[in-house]
Every structure is written in C-alpha cells, then in structure tokens.
C-alpha cells in the first residue's frame, strides 16, 4: 500500500533491524528510522525503555551490575 505499511508488514514478518528493512525496501536505513518515528507517533509501535527499567530493581543500590546502556532503540509493535 505504501512505505509505512510495508515497514509494518516487514516487522510483522520478522525483520528485526532497520538495516534489514532498508535493504528489503531499497531505501536508506535513515528513512526507515524516520518512518518508524512516524509510526510511533501514530501509535503503531512503541519504544521500549531499556535503560530506565533498571530503576525497578530493589537491589539497584548494591547490585554489582548495571543496566546496559543500550545504544539504539527497540520499538515494539502495538496491538
């Protein structure tokens, strides 16, 4: 139907990175990422907060590890 829809379809089919999608649609990864932002704003995907989720741990203070600073964003499809 259009690029926005194509991208949603590819995500549903299991394409996992913006680069993979870019290759399949023969557009740049940046454009794919731009469209994902629009899709987010339209409420079709949502960003998963990875860093902050560590705040939920009661032992955060004494835990030896730390939240990985995960550069790069993960978007999850909304129903």
């Amino acid at each position, binding site marked *: 139907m259009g*690029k926005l829809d194509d991208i949603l379809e590819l995500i549903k089919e299991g394409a996992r990175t913006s680069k993979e999608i870019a290759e399949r649609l023969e557009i740049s990864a940046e454009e794919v990422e731009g469209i994902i932002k629009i899709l987010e704003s*339209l*409420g079709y995907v949502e960003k998963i907060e990875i860093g902050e989720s560590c705040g939920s*741990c009661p032992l955060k203070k004494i835990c030896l590890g730390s939240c990985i600073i995960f550069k790069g964003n993960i978007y999850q499809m909304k129903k």
Partner: protein
Amino acid sequence: MNECHDLKYISKNKKQGLRVIALAGNPNVGKTTIFNGLTGLRQHVGNWPGVTVEKKEGILKYHDKEFLVIDLPGTYSLTASSIDELIARNFLLGSNADVVVDIVDSSSLMRNLFLTMEIFEMGIKNVIIALNKIDIAKKRGISFDVKKMEKVIGVPVIPTNAKSGEGVEELKAMISGMAEGKATTNPITPIYDEPIEQEIGHISGVLSETPLAQWYNVRWLAIKLLTRDQEVIKLVLNYLGPKKMDEILIHISELERYYKHPLDIVIANQKYEFIDKLMHQFVIHFGEVHETFSDCMDKILTHPLYGIFTLLGVFYLLFKFVFTIGTPLQEFLDNTFVSFGQLIAPHIGNETLRGLIVNGIIGGVGSVLSFFPLVFLLFVAMSILEDSGYMARAATVMEKIMRIFGLPGKSFIPMVLAFGCNVPAIMSTRTLEDERDRILTMLVNPLVPCSARMVVITFLTGVFFSKHKALVAVGIYAISLFLALLSALILGKFVIKGEESPFVMELPEYAIPSWKIALIHSWERSKEFLRKAGTVILFGSIAIWYLSSYPQAMGSGLSYAEKLGKVFEPFTMLMGLDWKAAVSLIFGIIAKENVIATYGVIYGIGENEEALIMLMRVAMTSLQAFVLALVTTLYIPCIATIGAIRAEGGNKWATVAVIYNLLLSSIIGVLVYNIGLFLGL
C-alpha cells in the same frame, strides 16, 4: 471562552500585546538551538499549564521591535497520542502564534515534512521553514534548490545552521516581516485518493454548517475524523449530535473495509507518498546511498554464525584486557591486606576480637576488596563496548540465534534486558499475555548472564586460575549463554506459539568511545561494588567467621561451618567439590561474592600467611576450580531476581525457578566434572 474551543489552548501572552512566534518541529532538529539564537539570554523556563512539560519563552529583539518566542515540544506528527503532541497541537490550533517557524532537519527531510504537512493541514498559513542542520546535509551530499522549494511548498524557506548561527539573521528578518503581514504564503496540502477526498468533501460540507467552521479548518477536522481521532470525535459530536455522527462513522467503516486498513495508516501512507513526490521537485542530490563501512561491519557482526564467534572473540578480548592489567594490581592489593592483617594482629589483645578483625573482616572483606581493580576495569571495558555501539549488534545476533533455537520472538525483549539485569527483564514478561509463555520466559531468564554475573565470572576466574584466565572466563560465559539458548529451545518446543508481538531495532552508528566517559561511568558503577563490600559482604564475612570459629575453631571438625558443609559434601563431591566449596556456595546465596569471602575467611583461620589466591590454586585442581566457578555463576538467581519472579508469578514459581537453577547447575557441574576427569584434565 465557551466549550467549542475545547481543543484549543489559548496562551495568556496573546493578551500582552506582543506578537507571538512559535517554534515547531520534530524532536532534536535544533529548535532550542534556534530559540537561543533568536532570543539570546532573554528567556524564561516554566511549565505548560497542568503538566510537567517544559515551556521555554523568550524575547526576540529585531531592530526596534520585540516578539515573544515560544519553543514548542518536539513531535513527529500532530495526532493526540502523547502529551507533547497534544500540547503542540492545541497550541497551534488556538491560533496563538502570529508566525510559526517550522524547523526541519535537512538531513532527514522526509520525516520532517510529515509534520510540516500536518501543520499546513490545520490551515495555518503564517509558516516559515527553517531548513536546519544544512551543514550535515551538505556533508552527506544532500543539496536543495531552495527557491524551487519555496515555490513548491508555498512558504518561505531559510537554510540555517543553528549551531554556527548561519541563517539566523535572515530568519529574524523573515519573522519580523511575516509578523507584520508583509509576506504572503500559500502552503501546499496533501491530496489523497479519490475515495478519501470524496469523504473529506462530504464531511467538510456537513461541518461547514456548524459553528465549528468559524474556529477550525473543516478539512482538518474531516481528516481527523477519518483517522478516528478521539478528541475530534468528541468535539464534533457536540455539534452534530449522535445521529449525524453515526452516519459519518458508518462511512468511515465502509472506507476502512475498502482499504482493509484503519484510515490513519492509509492517510499517513498517502501523505508520505505525497511528500516523496514533492521532494523530487526540489532536492537536487539525495545523497550517496552506497554501502558504507558500517554496513559491511553489520553484515558480519549480525550474521548468526560469524556474529556469535565475533561475540565470543570480543568478550575474550574484554576479559583479556581486564586480567592483563588488573591481575598485578589485584595481587598487590591482596598481599597488602594480608600484610596489614599480620601487622595489626599482635596489637589486638583480645583473642576473639583479633579473630574477628583479622580473619573475619580483613580476610573476608579484604579478599573481595582486592578485586576492585578487576571490577573497575571490567566496567571500563563494558562501557567502551556499549559506547561503541557494539551491544546492539550483539543483541541482534543473540536474537537471530534464539530464533533458530525456536524461542518465540516475544521472549526476546526480556532476554535482551537480562544482559543488563534480570529484574527488569522479568518484570517485562508482564507484556506476554499467555500465562505459559510468561512463566517459561521467567524461568529461562535468570540463565542469561547479567552484568553482575560478568563481575562474578571475572572474580572467580581471577581467584582460581593463574593461566588462561580470559579463556576460562569466556568459557563460563559461553556455557551460560548456551544454557540460556538450550532453555530457549525447550521453551520453543513447549510453548504453543501464540500471537507474536514483533519488534524492530535501530542499530546505532558505530562511535569511537570516549575514555573520559568510560572512566567516569565505571567509577559510578564500581562505587556500588565498594558499598556492597561494606555492607552485604562485611556482614557475610562476620557470619562466616562466627560459624567457622564456634563452638570450636575450624579443623576440629566441630565448627558449625564444617558441620554444615559436611551435610552437603556427599552431594557436591559428585562434581568434585569438598565441604569448603559447599559452605561457600551456601553463603553465596546471599551474594555471590561471598563465595570468595568464605574462602578468604576459611583460609585466614588456618593461620596461613600466604595470600588467598596462592592457597586457592593449590587447594583445588583447575577442573575443580572451573566447576566451582561455573556452578557459582549458575546455581541461583540473585535475591532480587527471585523476588521479581515471586512478584510476577507468585511463591510457587519463585520456588520452581530456584529449584530449576539448582538442578540445572548441579547437572552441568556433575557433567563438566566427569567429562573433565574422563579427558584427564
């Protein structure tokens, strides 16, 4: 003000007599930088009414005129799906601005113009486009015919580099001119498919006969109705009444059936296509789209086979770095603590107190503390890895492999989170609807070696091995990962694949890590390690010391610790571990570092004069040490993780999780030990 204005936000500034300039645009395009360029230091920061979204206002002085500039929250569209969007939208709807400066990022114009079109569709005419980050566009080989762009888009376009200030003066002049009505514009708006246009026409016709037509652009209202915008539906309902509204909604449903999609995505698609066509009229060069170095790297790094080897290779180098630099420091510290103990021992008259301080506290806490350099270096190395953008690639590889192993995609996010910490990972299983999926994901999750487990692995290999430390550490890490994957396989077999909740990842650009940030970061993280040494491990060490010294000192066979250890020894001997290991594993339940602390105390009590690690390395064969390190890494999730499983799945599943981990690690321990014996290790 009456209820008909309820979508609009009317700014108080309107009444102050100052002309208002609003800055709109996508997030991170340079709105605030331009805002600063326009207003200088004359600014005020507050909140938007009723919410904690920052509102920046400032005064722009141009010649002898003053304007009030307002920095709107950055948004990608003007649907009402987030508070930021709602603020920007309601502000723009309220005709509060005499001029709207739409700041677009010229290096990714397509998505930026999406918002521009939404602004135009509202019927706002006084718009100036600031074509910002023009320097970045230039670097990427993107160039524009600005005159043509103005003509096509229908409003003034000013190329800017907000960072250097280029174009800001021109922007000021244009703002001033437009605010005084000296500029005429004719913003272009998207045209949709015939069926949609027909329905827009129909709805607009109906709305034109209501008072709404005085306050809103009816085409905008019609489009928003088609997309089932809840705010607009509520507003229109007030004026049309339920009967007419139902009619419209029935039409919308028919259209949705025709397109087989909700209209918001259909309209967004067509808007996007419209922009695509527009761009071809004024973009001279779209920039190079050849395969970059980073694309090539990604092909290897995210390949399921090469990727996993690179992953192990990278972690090998990481451990190598940590041990090569850290071990001499660690040994130095360890010796220092031992000497310190010997130094102060003669000065403590009371025998019990001497035992407590020298053996308990210095022996236990000291042996753990001596690992501070290793921990710090590990964090430095991890920080650098994270900063370089590699972690996202590692996660992608893991996901691909998990998929091969049959793990349903929806369990991936908890798995990725687990590399940082298992607790948020387990909490995130909440998003899985199916009870079975959730429970199984929760059970497998603690097997993913979290960042704290990395520390424990570093620790244990540091103590038990004098050679090939990095290799051993990677080995333990790999076995851990393998078990997680194996469990994923089981998961895949037993979980009936329900509906997937797909996701997509944006790979960040590779970056050269900054040492400074890595060091600051690592210090922040390793401070926690010191704090932990001062609390959990201190109390642990005191407890261990007590249990090992009473009712009679160790060696007599009568101390509590020995008795306790001997109960479990027959079982742990199956994996070649004696009662000391059994005791240390029991204490390690509270915090895995206590495994080391226990050995520190036990050997301290034996009045040994040598540093702990020397003693440990003679006391155990490499195989035993490897098994102990492996089992320690795997045998139990940390207390917080158990707590999280309990909170999400109840007591029953928390118990099952603990038993599962214990069983699995025992089986692995026995297997590895016996295979090792068989191989003659």
